[in-house]
């Protein structure tokens, strides 16, 4: 008899909201898949650029960490701004996105090994768990106003966005890996 694998949607203990606890599980499952996709990549592969002006895998990993930490700070905790440099060791300038046409990869990420990105991602996720654990179901409809009223969303939407944002960039990492193999051999 062959092995039976179980892929059931799980949850986390200690959360104020069962809904948020399941979202956190989904985010962690997505992170597991991201890290699995980049396992064993060298520093050179992480900064490989298919063409000037295009993102590298390293930039996408840095962006996932930066964006998560920023979005949780302003879009869930409701702070007017984030302090990502202190929390995860990366600023928006460091991750370098969006590149302008013809630009090389982000200079702040030159030569960085996978462990650098894993550390930033882990620090971002630890902060996220701490913020999400406290959320109640009532918090899901709390409205956040950004940009002087130019953008409004509620916390429930931000949780959705956090998940689809990381999944989207994971898809792009897979394309970059495929393209790297196709063009570099």
């Amino acid at each position: 008899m062959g092995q039976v694998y179980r892929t059931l949607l799980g949850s986390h203990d200690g959360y104020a909201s069962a809904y948020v606890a399941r979202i956190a599980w989904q985010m962690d499952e997505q992170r597991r898949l991201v890290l699995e996709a980049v396992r064993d990549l060298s520093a050179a592969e992480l900064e490989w650029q298919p063409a000037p002006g295009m993102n590298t895998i390293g930039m996408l990993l840095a962006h996932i960490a930066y964006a998560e930490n920023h979005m949780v700070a302003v879009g869930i905790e409701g702070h007017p701004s984030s302090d990502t440099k202190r929390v995860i060791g990366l600023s928006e300038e460091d991750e370098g996105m969006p590149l302008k046409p013809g630009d090389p990869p982000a200079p702040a990420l030159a030569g960085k090994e996978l462990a650098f990105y894993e550390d930033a991602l882990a620090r971002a996720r630890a902060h996220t768990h701490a913020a999400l654990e406290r959320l109640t179901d009532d918090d899901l409809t709390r409205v956040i106003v950004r940009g002087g009223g130019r953008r409004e969303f509620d916390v429930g939407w931000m949780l959705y966005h956090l998940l689809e944002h990381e999944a989207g960039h994971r898809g792009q990492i897979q394309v970059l890996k495929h393209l790297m193999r196709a063009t570099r051999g």
Partner: protein
Amino acid sequence: MPTETIAPAQGIPCRDAALFVAQLDRLTSSLWEDVSDATPEELAWQPAPGMNTMGMLLAHIAIVEVYWIDRGVRAVEPVDIMAVLGIGMDDDGIPLRGDGPPPATLNGKDIGFYDELLVKARAHTHQVSAQVNDADMEREFERKSRSWPGSRTSNVRWVYYHMLEHLAGHYGQVLMLRHMYRAQVGARG
């Protein structure tokens, strides 16, 4: 400006299923805004031999959504993709073998063709999800795949999550292909 929110999809009594379907609808709306002006040439463009095109990805999104709704939520086997979409399970050409070209089934298709696939798939999702109750979300089922040995047990709640992250991942790839197409082909055009 309206507030961005995720309200349960109408007509689906199970709140958790309705929230997943609302997220699928929201994400597909964004996807459509980003691809609706793509030409047949761009939809069939391959960045390198053996790599997926935008058209293949859009067809794949629709096929996979119908597969999971029927196999996981309706517990149907075998799944009849053709009956819902008018194309078969393998007509997206994914995965391409080696350095293969895009599948002939998608030759010359315009964005209206892919829009119709996505609309049909989502209408099917709404229709089936309207019958789902809270207990169904925890129902487990076993499946086998051509890709790996043994079998896999999943539950309906995981199916909805997987459809969402699957759509999001391929949406990210579609955006990347558009960027690459504009940088490489657009610059020559």
